[in-house]
């Protein structure tokens, strides 16, 4: 077993019988089960753990938990590698691999550290000032800056782990499982309320884990274990460990991030790595504790300088010693018990340097009992050492807290700071609660609640254990009562007393002249100094939000947990105003970073959106058809054979359909069943044309407008029975049309007795088109398919190969054609039967691309033309518009701007050389060489090579186009740079009289 020189042989909440081996920067160490990466590194005496963000200064541990600002590591390797993880948040496991960040080539020899020597060049706002111009170089600057000021590296491989989301309702959610949260859970739990108690750490206990309190005659951790056992026995209480209440949202929705498997090398038994909980709580208790504040003096960032509570917790909970000789620098009484703990753990405490004038009896007793010298009315003005602190300079202060008199140097390898405590009000503030500033505590505390929550314990400034227990018990009971349960507060156990926190304030300790040059860090993670705050003030960035953005104060992954109050106070000093006048920045979700994978949850890969496939999907696949995503649908594009390209296949298929016969899968068309005595009135109100005289068993093409008078969608209306219709929509507009029709019925015309049902998935569709289509179909049915029985735009319910189907005599291709709707599970039967029955007629399947060619040849409009900017008349539906009835969009469609002769009208285009393809999206102009800007007269909306005409064609929207057939224009694509000379034509290239489809 390797030696852990800074580990005590006994003590702490670690299991010395379970040694764990881990690697940091390639070197192998040992720790114990119950360690964090931070505590294990400390026990091994590894002090230099990071380089700072901007100046590459050597850094060590500054904290114990989420407040850690310095030691962010790259955790794990390969696909599971994660950057920017605080070492204090990493539970040790066997084989853990971590690397330091932001250094090259190594922590001990870091070339970037030259920034520190050149630090005069890097004041706040440096990047903004230097890299502003010219703008086109910004991508280059950004790359360079990222490299210098980089944090960890994102993994480049796909994350192999899974993440999941969970949705819960509860009566009382308690965020934080320290003494207040545990008592709240006892109170609420005994009421029978559904309680969720979550804590971000591996174990409950909060501050009790790192201190030596006694509760009900037991140690803190023992009382915690008893209480947790009691809660675990309650069926209505759910305990979530390793679970951070990350975000507080409207209507008491709290998002929790449970790190299910982060404490293992890999997740086991298919468990997710993280689980996100969306908890809708009737009532919330916030028991999120508080974080100690550092003190600001010269070179207060040296490895070995850390929060007092952190050093105390490492010693008490892990038997890990931050060093051999400590100096405690405090402005309040809470550091004394910690100093005694450090001493008891075997660290020589050289002195407690206390900023305050006079001390109270309890803390003096603690110091005396532990035999620790106290220097009251003294400050640490500077720390010394590079890769580790080796001493501090201490000076007395006068009544104005100015350092005066003789300086003394004290040797030490640890400097513990206690600048008071900052309540963790993040969740309270996210819930839109209002904060107020407590002068005694010199801290922002919750004032007015906005949602159904209450704070208890240290997070609202009650720092003493006794107060935490009482407040927690009371808050839990109040929450349960507010949620509708009868209960009283749980019995509060007696506990040991602890110090009252009343800091004496000196936000930045002035550096005496003979020690000039030291940096006074306010924000360790972002390398923001007190001087930077001063510079921001000088340059006019005085509001708190400007200060943050100009200096980056509080913008790191630690969200300024230890730096915000100090930074605000220093700014307030420059402004000669109270801290409350400066205010705080907005606390935003999440409290601690959440991996992107956890945010996505199961919405990854194919599960981002549903994929809709037709009943014939596997057949299309087996035929090698590529698929085009259309909304959520996958539609088969065509069936290339013998080395054909998709376009060649489409040309062949489209030609074949006009000459012989083909079938195509049209299952994706939107279908809505419309029923009710007022159905006809409803349809008349939503379509431009009238359906009053549509007989049962007949189909009619219809066009809908939007409220603003522009075309929304088109489709076919079929009257199935007296009061029953089926309407079709385009594939992509199906859900929008359904939403709109539902809106009209529910909101605007509730008196109409009409019911709508989307039946898109209930009826699959096959279209059979081509001159032989009737011949083929007749082979499979006994029904009469003659023109007199089923004429163009007729409808029949027949059997095809024994399958009951709906038969619509409609045509998208312009050929003699039928559309067959059937139950999805019968689709393959009908499809196969058609292919077999049509063998003699050389029947083929055709895909979306051929269908597109056929409809362009026929001048039928789809998405490119139904683009939300076209009028019914412009698309050639002018004659359909009923003058006898009112319909949606009728009045707005008559506005002057939509009825002028020169608006976009649908036309056809043919290249004058009959060879050159017309680029899609090309602009129609008169003369590309004219002085710019050249007037745009129209645009190409669809184009193809027409196999039936033997030359390229296109559809276009052209100003006043209907009157311009025969004109020559230029189609210019700014994207491809092509210019094609085109002739304007009728948009119906094939069979303009419609004889074929009536055949």
């Amino acid at each position, binding site marked *: 077993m390797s030696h852990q020189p800074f580990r005590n042989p006994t003590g702490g909440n670690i299991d010395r019988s379970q040694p764990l081996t881990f690697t940091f920067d390639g070197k192998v160490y040992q720790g114990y089960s119950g360690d964090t990466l931070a505590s294990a590194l400390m026990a091994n005496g590894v002090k230099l753990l990071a380089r700072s963000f901007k100046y590459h200064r050597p850094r060590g541990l500054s904290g114990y938990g989420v407040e850690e600002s310095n030691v962010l590591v790259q955790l794990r390797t390969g696909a599971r590698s994660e950057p920017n993880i605080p070492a204090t948040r990493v539970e040790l496991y066997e084989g853990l691999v971590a690397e330091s960040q932001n250094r090259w080539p190594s922590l001990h020899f870091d070339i970037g550290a030259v920034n520190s020597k050149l630090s005069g060049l890097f004041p706040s706002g440096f990047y903004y000032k230097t890299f502003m111009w010219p703008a086109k170089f910004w991508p280059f600057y950004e790359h360079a800056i990222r490299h210098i000021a980089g944090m960890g590296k994102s993994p480049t491989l796909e994350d192999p782990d899974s993440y999941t989301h969970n*949705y819960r309702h509860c009566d009382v959610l308690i965020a934080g499982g320290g003494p207040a949260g545990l008592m709240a859970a006892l109170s609420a739990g005994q009421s029978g309320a559904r309680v969720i108690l979550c804590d971000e750490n591996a174990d409950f206990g909060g501050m009790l884990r790192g201190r030596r309190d006694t509760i009900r005659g037991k140690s803190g951790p023992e009382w915690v274990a008893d209480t947790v056992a009691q809660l675990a026995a309650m069926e209505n209480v759910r305990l979530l460990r390793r679970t951070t209440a990350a975000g507080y*949202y*409207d*209507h008491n*929705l709290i998002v929790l991030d449970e790190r299910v498997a982060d404490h293992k090398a890999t997740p086991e038994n298919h468990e997710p790595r993280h689980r996100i909980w*969306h908890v*809708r709580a009737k009532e919330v208790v916030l028991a999120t504790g508080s974080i100690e504040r550092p003190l600001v003096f010269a070179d207060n960032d040296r490895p070995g300088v850390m929060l007092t509570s952190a050093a105390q917790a490492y010693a008490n909970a892990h038997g890990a010693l931050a060093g051999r000789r400590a100096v405690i620098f405090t402005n309040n009484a809470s550091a004394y018990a910690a100093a005694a703990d450090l001493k008891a753990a075997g660290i020589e405490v050289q002195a407690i340097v206390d900023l305050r004038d006079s001390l109270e009896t309890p803390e003096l007793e603690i110091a005396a009992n532990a035999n620790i010298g106290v220097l009251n009315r003294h400050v640490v003005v500077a720390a010394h050492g590079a890769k580790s602190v080796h001493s501090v300079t201490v000076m007395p202060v006068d009544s104005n807290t100015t350092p005066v008199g003789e300086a003394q140097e004290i040797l030490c390898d640890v400097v513990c700071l206690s600048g008071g405590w900052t309540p963790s009000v993040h969740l309270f503030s996210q819930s839109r609660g209002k904060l107020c500033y407590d002068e005694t505590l010199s801290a922002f505390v919750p004032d007015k609640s*906005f949602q159904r929550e209450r704070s208890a314990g240290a997070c609202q400034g009650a720092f003493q254990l006794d107060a935490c227990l009482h407040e927690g018990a009371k808050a839990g009971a109040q929450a349960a009562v507010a949620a509708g349960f009868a209960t009283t507060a749980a019995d509060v156990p007696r506990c040991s007393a602890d110090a009252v926190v009343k800091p004496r304030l000196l936000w930045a300790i002035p550096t005496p002249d003979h020690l000039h040059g030291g940096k006074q860090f306010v924000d360790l993670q972002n390398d923001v100094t007190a001087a930077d705050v001063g510079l921001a003030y000088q340059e006019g960035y005085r509001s708190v939000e400007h200060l943050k953005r100009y200096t980056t104060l509080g913008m790191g992954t630690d969200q300024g947990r230890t730096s915000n109050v100090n930074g605000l106070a220093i700014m307030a000093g420059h402004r000669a105003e109270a801290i409350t006048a400066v205010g705080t920045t907005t606390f935003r979700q999440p409290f601690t970073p959440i991996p992107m994978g956890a945010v996505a949850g199961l919405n990854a890969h194919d599960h981002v959106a549903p994929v809709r496939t037709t009943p014939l999907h596997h057949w299309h696949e087996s035929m090698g058809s590529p698929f085009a995503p259309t909304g959520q649908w996958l539609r088969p594009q065509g069936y290339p054979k013998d080395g054909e390209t998709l376009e060649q296949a489409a040309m062949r298929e489209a030609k074949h359909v006009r000459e012989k016969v083909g079938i195509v899968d049209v299952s994706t068309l939107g279908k809505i069943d419309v029923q009710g005595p007022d159905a006809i009135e409803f349809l008349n*109100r939503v379509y431009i044309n009238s359906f009053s005289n549509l007989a049962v068993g007949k189909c009619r093409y219809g066009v809908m407008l939007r*409220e*603003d008078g522009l075309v929304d969608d088109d489709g076919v209306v079929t009257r199935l029975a007296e009061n029953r219709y089926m309407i079709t929509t385009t594939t992509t507009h199906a859900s929008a049309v359904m*939403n709109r029709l*539902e*809106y009209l019925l*529910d*909101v*605007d015309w*509730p008196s109409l007795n009409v019911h709508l049902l989307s039946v898109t998935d209930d009826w699959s569709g096959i279209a059979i088109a081509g001159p032989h289509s009737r011949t083929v179909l007749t082979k499979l049915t006994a029904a009469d398919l003659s023109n007199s029985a089923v004429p163009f735009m007729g409808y029949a319910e027949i059997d095809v190969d024994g399958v009951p189907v709906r038969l619509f005599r409609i045509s998208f291709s312009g050929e003699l054609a039928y559309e067959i709707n059937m139950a999805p599970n019968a689709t393959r039967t009908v499809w196969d039967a058609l292919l077999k029955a049509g063998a003699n007629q050389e029947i083929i399947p055709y895909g979306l691309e051929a269908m597109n060619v056929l409809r362009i040849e026929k001048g039928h409009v789809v998405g490119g033309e139904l683009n939300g900017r076209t009028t019914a008349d412009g698309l050639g539906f002018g004659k359909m518009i009923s003058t006898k009835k*009112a*319909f*949606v969009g*009728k*009045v*707005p469609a*008559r*506005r002057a701007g939509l009825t002028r002769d020169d608006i976009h009208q649908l036309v056809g285009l043919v290249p004058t050389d009959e060879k050159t393809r017309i680029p899609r999206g090309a602009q129609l102009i008169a003369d590309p060489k004219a002085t710019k800007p050249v007037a745009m007269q129209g645009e190409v909306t669809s184009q193809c090579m027409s196999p039936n005409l033997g030359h390229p064609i296109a559809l276009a929207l052209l100003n006043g186009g209907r009157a311009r057939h025969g004109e020559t224009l230029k189609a210019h694509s700014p994207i491809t740079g092509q210019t094609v000379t085109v002739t304007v034509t009728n948009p119906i290239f094939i069979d303009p009289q419609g004889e074929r489809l009536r055949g």
Partner: protein
Amino acid sequence: MLEITCPYCGKRAQKEFTYAGDAGAERPNLETGTNQDWFEFVYLRDNPRGLHDELWHHSAGCRRLIKVRRDVVTHEIIDTGAPSDSLSTGAS
């Protein structure tokens, strides 16, 4: 993330709903509405601070349109109902 009480289904998460516009906008009569009426209905909306009547489509639920009276400052939902219902003012 709001919690919206559908008058037909009960309390549901906002993600089941789709915002469907201002419930105060009055659709002109199809027969008698003038061009100006339609212009105002299609394009002009008030954006009041405070109480606002909204339409929400319970698109991933019962698919009915409902009316929601919401304080757009606090997100408090005062009352919900069918589009034709008159909702409580919340003053109690």
